[in-house]
């Protein structure tokens, strides 16, 4: 579907970015089905927000998807529900390894939920493979300061992690 007066091809954009965004969201919420729900939700918001169509659409939809995912993560009941399901990466691990990995994911998500939205956004965008410039575009930041901000976000993450679970 073509949108607005611009030549922005929404369907093509969707095909280009959907899988990567769904996987990024899945890192936060854990459940693939829920991740796809939230990814579609992010694209739906993009569809309705015509001003974002164009060259900034990529950053816009990444940011929106991660915010949706982080909001979702803050629902503790849902999170525990997701964690009761086996993660797709662990099908070959033994039960003890599965339990340990699930515990690790729970702890990481708990820390992400506690370090502030901007810090979590920076870490998730960066760890999903976006370059500094793309992270800056997504979060509407000065590209020259993104490196410093990511570094601070990492410090905040580690500090919170140690505070909650001790040094490992």
């Amino acid at each position, binding site marked *: 579907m073509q949108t607005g007066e611009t030549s922005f091809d929404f369907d093509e954009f969707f095909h280009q970015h*959907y*899988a990567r965004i769904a996987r990024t969201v899945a890192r936060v919420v854990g459940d693939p089905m829920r991740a796809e729900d939230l990814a579609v939700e992010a694209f739906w918001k993009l569809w309705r927000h015509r001003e974002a169509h164009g060259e900034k659409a990529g950053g816009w939809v990444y940011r929106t998807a991660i915010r949706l995912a982080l909001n979702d993560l803050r629902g503790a009941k849902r999170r525990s529900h997701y964690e009761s399901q086996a993660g797709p990466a662990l099908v070959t691990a033994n039960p003890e390894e599965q339990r340990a990995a699930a515990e690790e994911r729970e702890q990481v998500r708990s820390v992400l939920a506690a370090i502030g939205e901007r810090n979590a956004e920076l870490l*998730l965008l960066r760890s999903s493979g976006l370059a500094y410039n793309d992270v800056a575009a997504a979060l509407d930041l000065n590209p020259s300061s993104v490196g410093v901000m990511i570094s601070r976000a*990492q410090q905040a993450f580690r500090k919170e992690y140690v505070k909650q679970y001790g040094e490992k």
Partner: protein
Amino acid sequence: MAKNESNEGRWVDERLASLEPGAEWKPDPERGLSRLHDRRRAARRHTIEWVVAGMAGAAACVALVVTMSPGACARPLGCSAGGSHPAVQTSPGPAPVAPPPPQTPAPVPAAAVAFKQFGLPTAPVLCEIYTDYECPSCAALYRTVVPVLMERYVATGKVRLLHRDFPLPQHPYARLAARYANAAGETGHYEEVVNQIFRTQSTWASDGDLSSQVAQVVSPEAMDKIRELVARDSHLDDTVMADMSMAMRDQIRQTPTLVFVVDGKRQPLPGLPQLEMLETYLDQLVASAGRK
């Protein structure tokens, strides 16, 4: 210091890597896009329902205002039929103000002459347009909406268009304009004369001099014939009366009003529609035609 930061970065990356979903999980873009399209269609349907309901409500309000002050013409939406229309035999009681239902069973259609119809008889949707030649919103409809309908829907075989006359009593020259248009139809010049009458509405509406405006778009010979028909043909108003009779059955209360006929159901849309909304609505009607 830099080494500490680097170590810290690696430590955090290792923790975050634990969140990586398994490689065997492949998000399905086709399914995602299909869900998005479904949602978009549902939202548009919802919006259209609200707009149609809103327009019907607005039409009811206008009808109420006009009933209280006969002769008024509400330009933003269209012109409303007052309670004293000579050709519409209304009941002697108070004029009804409730809007027509959004969808009604089809009354038996009044016969329509061929020159007032455009498009293929096999088109899945029939769009009947009730207008008054002196109504500003009707002129706007013919200036902005009808050309698009003709190009995108009528020429492509999706919609058949039917013009219906609904001259209102508060417009002294509307009936005369309809006579000129129908006389032009008898001579094979209906479309260009209708467009010319609407286009020059502000000029002839002050003095009723339609002849000089119509003469600009037809040959002198055709104009002589049109003048002759307007002056002498006692049957020229037959089609207008038939349209007015149909308007009664459709419960038309204002101009313009578009009536969509799909699978035997008549769905009136009063007022000047927004083009984008109308296109969405028509697309849905065309898609749904024949399914029921």
